[in-house]
């Protein structure tokens, strides 16, 4: 009964969406004119920000404020998860079963490689696809692997907390520096450098490093919290 009503309602909503989508045909060039933001980004991003990856330019500079908010959301999720799963007394759970030897060795072998990959991705965010988030997630998945595989690995939460706190503050401080130096928050006030090289694009790599570290630390903390609760 409920499913039926739901299907009917969703049919109506689907109809509405379809009507909308017929107004924005797939693949049409909706940013043809110059005053559209998308066109502006494509044409001006290399000069204005010095980043080869326009998406990165948009994420970090044009819509940097969004990114700050997004980092905050993740921060909230990490903290909120810790709060929800907070336990007054730390109970001693039974020690986790050690993983099989193959898994353990594989994890320990892969762990540094994954970390390096993650760091590479967020360092090259302004040049190649990827950036702070993707890199951070990859770092976190490395830690996930370590948690699963190397059961005896204990990383203290405080380090993650310190990292995310520092990285977050670094983001805000970079923004404030922009405000102080250029008169507007998150201003890309540093020299742009040579286009398409690692040391270019002003504060973008710096912010992306901060984001990468922060996202990595947050997601790791998140997983660690969940896992701890599990055992």
């Amino acid at each position, binding site marked *: 009964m409920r499913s039926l009503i739901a299907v009917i309602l969703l049919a109506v909503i689907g109809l*509405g969406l379809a009507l*909308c989508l017929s107004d924005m045909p797939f693949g049409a060039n*909706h940013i043809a004119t110059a005053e559209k933001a998308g066109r502006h980004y494509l044409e001006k991003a290399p000069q204005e920000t010095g980043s080869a990856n326009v998406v990165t330019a948009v994420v970090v500079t044009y819509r940097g404020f969004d990114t700050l908010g997004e980092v*905050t959301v993740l921060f909230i999720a990490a903290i909120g998860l810790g709060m929800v799963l907070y336990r007054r007394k730390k109970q001693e759970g039974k020690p986790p079963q050690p993983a099989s030897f193959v898994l353990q060795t594989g994890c320990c072998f892969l762990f540094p490689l994954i970390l390096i990959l993650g760091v590479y991705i967020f360092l090259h965010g302004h040049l190649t696809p990827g950036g702070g988030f993707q890199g951070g997630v990859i770092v976190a998945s490395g830690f996930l692997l370590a948690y699963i595989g190397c059961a005896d690995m204990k990383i203290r939460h405080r380090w993650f907390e310190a990292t995310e706190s520092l990285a977050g503050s670094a983001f805000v401080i970079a923004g404030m520096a922009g405000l102080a130096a250029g008169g507007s928050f998150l201003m890309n006030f540093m020299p742009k450098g040579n286009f398409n090289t690692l040391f270019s694009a002003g504060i973008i790599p710096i912010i992306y490093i901060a984001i990468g570290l922060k996202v990595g630390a947050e997601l790791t903390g998140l997983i660690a919290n969940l896992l701890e609760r599990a055992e």
Partner: protein
Amino acid sequence: MVNPVLLLAVPLGLAFLTPLLAFISDRIARYVPVAGMLFNCVVSVSLIPSVLNRPIIVQTGGFAPPFGINLVAGPLGITLAAVIALVGLAVSVYGLAYVKEGATVKYHVLYLLLLTGATGVVLTGDIFNLFVFYEILCISSYALVAYSGDKNGVEAAVKYLIQGSIGSGLALIGIAILYGVFGTLNMADIARNIGSTGILNTTLFIALAFMVAGFGVEAAVFPLNAWLPDAHSSAPAPISAILSGIAIKVGIYVVVRIVFTVFGAPSMFMLLVVIGVVTLLIGEMSAFSQNNIKRMLAYSSVGQVGLIVFALGMATTGGISGGLFQIISHALAKSLLFLATGYMIYRSGSMEISSLQGMGKRMPLTCCAFTIGAFSLVGLPPFAGFPGKFMIVRAAIAQQQHLFTFLIALVLFGTIIEACYFFRIVQAAYFTGPREEPDAGKQRREEAPLFALAPMLGLLVFIIALGVYPEPVIRLLDSCAAELLNRFDYIKGVLG
């Protein structure tokens, strides 16, 4: 002049720093929200005079509005930011005393971020940025509702989360449609593209419908508000106060901003009015026969939301400034009520109204605060609720339409019901319970601690001050109403 972006950057930075500070000492971390809100309070109040003439447009990243994200510190935004900071300050001081158990540092961080999210929503001029701040607000409130970790808190948080994420998802669909049609995310730019057609075409209307339904969840208008009674009644007292006082107001702000400024859709105004009345009636009626006091207050918030939406939907200067005044007075009064109730429940150990017996003797000051808050909500002079209700009714009658006459009758009926249940509680607090000899009362007095009383009394002073001399605020709100009504001024102000 201070840059309004600091209203967001400073609390954000403080929130990020808090875990570090907590390494040094938990005591320092506790005072971070107080510091952040104090800062916001000072800054936003000091900004009010300068934004009255023309809004301050703040660019981020140094890019001109349609290309970068901009903040629009107009009268409306700054006024709401000031209210948020003010109520936030009071509640954070209260939290110092109230929040003792559990992950206190995390609580304070989330609390500060919740208020930052709310401030961001009212200040931003970019619709996706609005969505992001809206999510900050929502997600931190999901987590905070479950702060105590008890059965009801977690259940309420789960329900809130599910409904809230459906809402934000729908809103994001609306934003996606708008972007697909216009290729821009700046609210002023979208508004300029929509123009002043009056009647929207189907696509735009559906985008609007998605956004109203989505953001309406946080605004708690009738069919979308089922999370509210659960969440408000199960959260810890300061969070209930913030949710009722601030969070739903921000939701209302978003809906109104979208309907008025972005779409300029006069055809939606009537819908708002009708939804408002229905919400009001359902909220007040549901509150009428509640035995759980926090749930009753929560339903009363639903009713008040209805009243506010009704007022804003009238789309006249009088109606809007009445609605905004009601937002302020309700924010003050309802957070006061929740704060007072928090300690009453703490002392009596039960949320049943019958357990409030004799509270007037046990905690006289808290009870007095509760009573005045209740009177203010009912709209009795000389408290802040009166000018708001008065202006709303005046604006509705000034419409001089039969429909409005009918609706205002329903609204007043709702007010009567509201008066009934609030007076019942006031009676229960003062005039029931064991009769005591005047001398014996001294040793049984268990007043709330000073840190909890101070913010209550602060809010009380504001309620009475607003009730006795509302004129400066009304003048401010009139310019807010003008900002909402003249969308072309807004567009011109942002895009030049």
